[in-house]
């Protein structure tokens, strides 16, 4: 673990992953703009170019040859794009989107040098290269028409010059903005200006004016291109940023701006430009954050646990002095100090947990590409709307969520949103909407995956469940509409019999549900036929801490995650009946299968008599009662997994420290359920109400 090469490798992978994610996000924005028929945002293309450029750089440094090769080819293509030598079209976008997947594939390889394990690198590069430059249209240099001095033109980079020409061609007006900037904060100020200007105008370049500045400040002349009329632009910038003036076309006013031309050509060194500027920007962003292995946070948390032990050890020592009047005053003082210590400790714990929080946007950003791809494959039009992407959750949960959410998203496109012609016939907008909403609710995070598609056919679900023998005929009679919808969580049930490329690949809704339950969450469905479906996932903010019911069986203590528990009721032995070899009791007219944890775990000393409890747990449409001896209470516990050596023992999600090194095994309800119902008569299982 301490192999420095490994660390460096991890560092590279993490950074490369971030770059690829950023690339993926930016490509989506580019695609959206293109589909809407809008002009591509030059800053965005530049951003994409930078990501690929940086990726190429670090791939070369760490010996990821194929990543480097692909990034290099893309860089050339993107350079053509940003310099206007090629234009955006579907083939180009396809190639770019394809790159994201290729990068991810290559980064997942163990051996970066693997010669040609991943076929298609060369073919892909060829495909990239085949998108050549557009034929050059020569209409005379538009720059000639403007009064921009040669001294300025000579210091423009190729890119800046291209943008200047492009803006003029698009009929934008050129402006000269004079603004004074504080020298110490000049980089930030220019970034701010860039942000402010962005919607109204494009900054082509900026140069120091060599006047109007002093030791602390500098006046810059900013060359702007904008569609906004002069008065409006003036109203926006004048005063706040300095003065603004129009650069007229030469035919109208052939004056040479004195200040711009007075700059000697070597003056550009005053300010970092193009590549240098890029390097500085990325250095700045690194200074504010550090990447930390989540295991290090676990270690920190362990130290906090140790400190709590030290605190209780001190208390024990103190108890030894109790009753001695000599120490009364000091003991009281010590107790006060001890309470302060505990407060700080709990604060420390909260802060560490806080560090583990990451925005859900990390996983949401992956879906844009999937939605686009899935919609194209199915010839459907889908608009993805994301709200609450900055809702924060424990890093581990966000990671674990990716697969279940991906499945829900694919389901919504595959089974939910109708093809374009169907939607037209139904007078729905041809473009379907898929919404991903996330928000906090108490100590939970709610994530909704909502589509405005065809909705689920509850009766069809019931028919399928009956046909597949997942449901007995009598049980089928009594189902409410919601019960029928919940049938979708049964293993082996899928409404669409055709196995498509995306969903229906054997990973069903039951797996989604199990995975979410494993994280201590719950899933629910709301669906109206013809209107749409909403799947709601409720999760605890952090995985590390779960609320658990502490129970005993004989001398043993267990923790049962509260999310699985519906209720706990006194157990009366005489109520137990046996149906098909299984013990059941009747609760409020419903049959409930029961499982004695003492028997299941072979615990000696479990109670035989009556004063025991049934804990009714539910999972999907199944209910099961666990018989336990005592209910100790509810507690927030930190679950830690059992070691590799115990991984084959079923039924436990891990262990939790209840304090003073007393561990309680945390019961894994999904695993106990599947163990109990395995090979069981399924109809019996669903007979109980969901």
């Amino acid at each position, binding site marked *: 673990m301490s192999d420095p090469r490994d660390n460096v490798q991890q560092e590279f992978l993490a950074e490369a992953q971030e770059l690829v994610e950023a690339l993926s996000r930016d490509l989506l924005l580019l695609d959206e703009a293109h589909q809407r028929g809008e002009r591509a945002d030059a800053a965005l293309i530049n951003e994409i170019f930078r990501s690929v450029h940086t990726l190429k750089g670090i791939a070369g440094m760490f010996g990821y040859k194929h990543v480097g090769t692909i990034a290099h080819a893309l860089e050339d293509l993107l350079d053509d794009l940003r310099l206007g030598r090629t234009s955006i079209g579907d083939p180009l976008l396809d190639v770019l989107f394809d790159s994201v997947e290729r990068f991810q594939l290559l980064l997942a390889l163990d051996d970066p040098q693997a010669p040609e394990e991943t076929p298609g690198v060369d073919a892909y590069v060829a495909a990239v290269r085949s998108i050549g430059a557009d034929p050059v249209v020569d209409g005379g240099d538009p720059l000639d028409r403007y009064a921009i001095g040669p001294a300025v033109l000579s210091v423009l980079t190729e890119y800046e010059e291209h943008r200047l020409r492009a803006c003029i061609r698009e009929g934008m007006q050129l402006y000269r903005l004079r603004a004074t900037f504080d020298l110490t904060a000049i980089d930030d100020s220019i970034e701010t200006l860039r942000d402010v200007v962005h919607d109204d105008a494009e900054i082509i370049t900026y140069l120091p004016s060599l006047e109007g500045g002093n030791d602390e400040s500098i006046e810059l002349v900013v060359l702007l291109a904008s569609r906004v009329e002069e008065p409006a632009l003036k109203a926006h910038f004048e005063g706040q940023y300095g003065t603004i003036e129009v650069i007229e076309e030469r035919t109208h006013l052939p004056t040479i701006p004195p200040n711009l031309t007075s700059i000697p050509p070597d003056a550009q060194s005053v300010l970092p430009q193009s590549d240098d500027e890029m390097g500085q920007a990325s250095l700045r962003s690194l200074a504010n954050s550090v990447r930390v292995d989540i295991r290090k946070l676990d270690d920190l948390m362990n130290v906090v646990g140790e400190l709590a032990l030290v605190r209780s050890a001190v208390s024990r020592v103190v108890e030894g002095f109790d009753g001695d009047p000599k120490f009364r005053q000091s003991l009281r003082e010590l107790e006060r100090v001890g309470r302060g210590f505990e407060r700080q400790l709990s604060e420390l714990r909260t802060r560490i947990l806080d560090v583990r929080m990451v925005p859900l946007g990390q996983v949401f950003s992956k879906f844009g590409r999937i939605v686009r791809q899935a919609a194209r494959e199915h010839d459907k039009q889908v608009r993805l709307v994301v709200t609450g992407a900055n809702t924060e959750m424990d890093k581990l949960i966000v990671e674990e969520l990716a697969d279940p959410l991906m499945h829900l998203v694919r389901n919504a496109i595959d089974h939910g949103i109708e093809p374009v012609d169907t939607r037209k016939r139904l007078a729905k907008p041809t473009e379907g909407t898929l919404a991903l909403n996330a928000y906090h609710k108490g100590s939970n995070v709610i994530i909704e995956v909502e589509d405005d598609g065809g909705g689920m056919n509850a009766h069809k679900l019931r028919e399928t469940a009956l046909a597949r023998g997942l449901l007995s005929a009598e049980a089928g009679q009594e189902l409410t509409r919601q019960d029928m919808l919940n049938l979708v969580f049964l293993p082996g049930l899928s409404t669409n019999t055709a196995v498509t490329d995306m969903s229906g690949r054997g990973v069903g809704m039951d797996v989604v549900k199990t995975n979410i339950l494993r994280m201590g969450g719950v899933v629910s469905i709301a669906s109206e036929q013809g209107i749409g479906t909403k799947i709601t996932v409720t999760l605890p903010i952090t995985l590390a801490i779960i609320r658990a019911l502490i129970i005993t069986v004989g001398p043993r203590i267990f923790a049962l995650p509260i999310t699985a528990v519906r209720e706990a009721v006194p157990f009366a032995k005489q109520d137990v009946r046996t149906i098909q070899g299984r013990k059941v009791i009747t609760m409020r007219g419903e049959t409930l299968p029961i499982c004695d944890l003492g028997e299941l775990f072979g615990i000696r000393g479990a109670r035989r008599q009556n004063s025991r409890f049934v804990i009714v747990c539910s999972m999907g449409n199944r209910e099961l009662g666990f018989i336990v001896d005592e209910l100790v209470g509810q507690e927030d516990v930190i679950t830690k997994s059992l*070691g*590799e*050596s115990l991984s084959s023992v079923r039924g436990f999600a891990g262990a939790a420290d209840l304090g003073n090194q*007393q*561990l309680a095994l945390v019961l894994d309800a999904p695993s106990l359920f599947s163990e109990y119902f395995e090979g069981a008569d399924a109809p019996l299982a669903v007979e109980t109400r969901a």
Partner: protein
Amino acid sequence: MTAGAQRATLIPDPDSEEGAVPVLAVSAGNEIYAFPLAAIREILMPPPLTEVPRAGEHFLGVIAVRGQIITLVDLPKLLKLQVPDRQPLGRVLLVEVGEEMIGVAVDHVVQVAQLQSDQIEYSGSMSAELAEYVVGVARVPLESSSDAEEMVILIDPQVLLGGLK
């Protein structure tokens, strides 16, 4: 965990000047075993034990050590030796095996001994099952023993505890 534990070797390097391997001699049941000292991360007083239902008989359960959950195994039972239950536990050796830290319960820690290569008898007269984990047996002069030498069983912890199920 920090520095990856070096593969502890029980075979003394004949070229090295000392030609000796430090081992930790421990007693469990009726035998004395020796672990290469380099394999032992820590020796603990046994913390409260939580039994894990349905785990193999050689698993005593789990313990919490500095917030980490550690699996505790019983040495004689792991070697499939018939021994009476020996509660309370004497000492716990923490051994790092691959990615996992495993606790090995023993009765007593006897001493650290320097094992010379000529003390080890590799031709084991032990059962085939044992031979897998056991490097050999050695006669070691023990401080506590009135006899001049005591027979110890040399354990290879990586083989014994790796891939534990």
